[in-house]
């Protein structure tokens, strides 16, 4: 009886072998690390996959590559959907495409303008290979163009490149890193307009590209191109004045409303947006000096979450926003001896006034467009009891006619490794 039982169990255990039908050998898998989606012709999509070549990254295996282009290969397929593109790609890639290591998805601007980004999201959500922690970006112009021209300054690993860029976004505030989960959540949340971080090619750097290498332009040409640019970098949506480095710039945000890209905001506006949306971590701010000449720079971190109070007075919403920032003094170009209680108060107040002005500007911009990417309605819903009230709230309309008062509290905690600026007493430069 025991032998029969053992035999029976052994035969039944053979069933478990069928589980091997889901096996995925590393040698038979092509990992897609980044993906770009553009609007194609006749309602098609142009889908670009960047497939990893793991062997080329392994120095022990003889890999001596130095650039992203040598560790990955791009493949572009035109298809009606992402799923169809994936299936068509298998007709020319000898391994099975696998998206479990996908780090970033780029959407072309045209796709976004025509309201087609939301229609592609479903594939990314439904297919278990795609993770909701994948980052999403909006490209200025076609995604494929940026996809093919990007040249990381240091990294040859896509994962580290993406992680590094997103970390910088968090630390500098010129944009906001957004995952698929965050984007979808904002789509599904009442009374908020979702945003995507912007990625664009710098035309100056693109002209320096030759044979997949960036060759910095001569000084004379740089001066010539620099001429006429009066606005500080990041203030407008225009590309930075720059030579060398990666042609790609991760700066600014794209604002969506009712599924379509509605507006593009600059790096400075993204900073103000982050303050209001509570996605601000820290950033280096450069302010005009109160003496009217020179600048001073402060690295400001969020000291606590924004305090927003919304109430209605005579049917007009009154929004009061208090923002709290503190940080370190980074530079005093004017060499003024501000590092004393009175001096610090002067530059703190000056910084607060400038930030207040910038925040009010983006609020006014949003009010003009009847959108709320800042999700200020969260402060209203926190006082709500029933979902029906939330659904009945006509927030965008209310917000557009709201009276907004912003108060920024800036506190400079540390002066750095220098107290008052060095000053040669006989020096009278700059006067």
């Amino acid at each position, binding site marked *: 009886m025991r032998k029969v039982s053992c035999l029976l169990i052994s035969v039944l255990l053979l069933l*478990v072998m*069928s589980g091997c*039908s*889901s096996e995925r050998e590393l040698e038979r898998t092509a990992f897609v690390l980044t993906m770009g989606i553009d609007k194609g012709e006749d309602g098609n999509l142009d889908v670009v996959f960047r497939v990893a070549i793991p062997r080329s990254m392994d120095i022990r295996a003889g890999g001596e590559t130095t650039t992203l282009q040598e560790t990955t290969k791009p493949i572009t397929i035109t298809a009606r959907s992402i799923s169809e593109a994936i299936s068509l790609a298998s007709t020319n890639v000898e391994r099975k495409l696998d998206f479990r290591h996908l780090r970033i998805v780029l959407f072309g601007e045209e796709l976004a303008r025509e309201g087609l980004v939301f229609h592609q999201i479903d594939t990314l959500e439904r297919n278990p290979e795609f993770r909701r922690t994948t980052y999403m970006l909006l490209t200025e112009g076609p995604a494929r163009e940026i996809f093919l021209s990007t040249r990381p300054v240091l990294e040859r690993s896509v994962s580290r490149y993406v*992680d590094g860029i997103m970390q910088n976004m968090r630390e500098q505030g010129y944009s906001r890193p957004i*995952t698929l989960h965050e984007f979808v959540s904002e789509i599904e949340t*009442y009374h908020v307009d979702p945003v995507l971080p912007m990625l664009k090619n710098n035309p100056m750097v693109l002209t320096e590209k030759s044979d997949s290498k960036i060759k910095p332009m001569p000084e004379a040409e740089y001066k010539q191109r620099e001429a006429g640019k009066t606005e500080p970098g990041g203030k407008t949506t225009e590309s930075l004045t720059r030579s060398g480095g990666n042609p790609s710039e991760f700066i600014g945000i794209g604002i969506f409303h009712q599924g379509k890209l509605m507006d593009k905001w600059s790096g400075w506006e993204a900073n103000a947006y982050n303050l209001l949306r509570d996605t601000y971590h820290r950033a280096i701010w450069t302010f005009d000096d109160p003496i009217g000449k020179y600048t001073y720079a402060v690295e400001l971190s969020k000291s606590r979450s924004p305090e927003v109070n919304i109430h209605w007075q005579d049917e007009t919403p009154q929004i009061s926003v208090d923002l709290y920032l503190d940080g370190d003094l980074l530079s005093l170009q004017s060499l003024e001896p501000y590092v004393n209680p009175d001096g610090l108060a002067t530059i703190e107040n000056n910084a607060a006034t400038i930030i207040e002005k910038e925040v009010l500007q983006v609020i006014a911009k949003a009010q003009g467009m009847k959108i709320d990417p800042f999700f200020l309605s969260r402060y209203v819903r926190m006082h709500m009891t*029933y*979902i029906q009230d939330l659904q009945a709230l006509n927030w965008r309309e209310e917000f557009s006619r709201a009276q907004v008062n912003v108060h920024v509290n800036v506190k400079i905690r540390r002066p750095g490794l220098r107290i008052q600026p060095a000053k040669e007493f006989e020096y009278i430069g700059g006067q």
Partner: protein
Amino acid sequence: MKQSSQEGYLGGIEAFVLVSMFITVKLFFHIPRELSSAAGTASWMVPLIAFLGVVPVFLCVERVANRFSRASLLSISGLLWGRYVQWFLGLFLTVLLVVHVGYQMRIFGEFMITTLLPNTPISVVIISSALLGVFLAYNGLENLSRTAWLLFPLAIVVFLVSIFLVGFQGHIYYLSPWLGYGGVATIETGIRFMGLFKEIVLLTLIAPLFRKQKTFRQVGFGSLLFTASIYTLTQIVLHLNFPFPGAREVGFPLYQLGRLINLQFAIQRLEPFMVFAWSTVTTIGIAVGLYESALATTQGSRAPDFRPFLFPLAALAVVVAFIPESSIEAVNTYTYLMMILPIPFYGLPVFTWIWVTLFYRNSEELK
């Protein structure tokens, strides 16, 4: 090796873990989504309201068990209404439990295929889980409860770590508006979802395995309170991370939550650990379900041992698992079962308690 047909006594803590695991199996399925769909942002209150609703039911179970020195409910029904009623109730409970386990196996199979084993035939997952369930149940509840107790630290640590890691990534404002679709609507939903704890009926069948009435009572209340807390915590974390319109559309909510854990370079892609722990709990739950159905047959028919019933009932459960044509059909039917099974599962002990209170007098009382 001769297998004894007699079962040993159950330890309090082991029984608590076993009943808790049996109740929480559906947490890993689609149930958090159903709660969100029904109660919106107030879905976290639903398990607490359902718990309050089930407490009186368990009090009835406890009173009846106490009155008859922890005899099983089916034995008590035989004593009260005769052996034919006992046989019928045994058969009735067996059918319900087999259907319940069958659907659990099907949804577990769908979960495995959707998440980890996309190319594996679902029959392999279902039959494998049934075989494992039979193997675990065959050695009796004493061994099964010890296995559950051994695996409990792993399951609870993985669950709590994942819940807290993902909870800290969430936003408190997604929990508002605080009363969902309304206070009355939420209470109504809580009552409709009393089936969250329907597995507590297991205690009515295994009551003879407890040494003391106090242990029986503690296990019942303890496991109800513990599982209500687990469900509540899960719903809070689900809503911290998903806005309510999105939460009701998430395929496997707990798995999706686990996949959201992403602490930059340090901690991400933790879900394989979680799937392992959840599969373990689910397997124990399926084994308990098979055991319970065999026990209902045994007690209904007054058979001396449950083991001969295990294989045919497991085979029936596998057949039931293949009835739904699609994953969505399986999920919808399971939710429907969760709503209607409490009627017999809670109704029978409550009715017995009322009957005993009103009509039954034992020989001592008659003197």
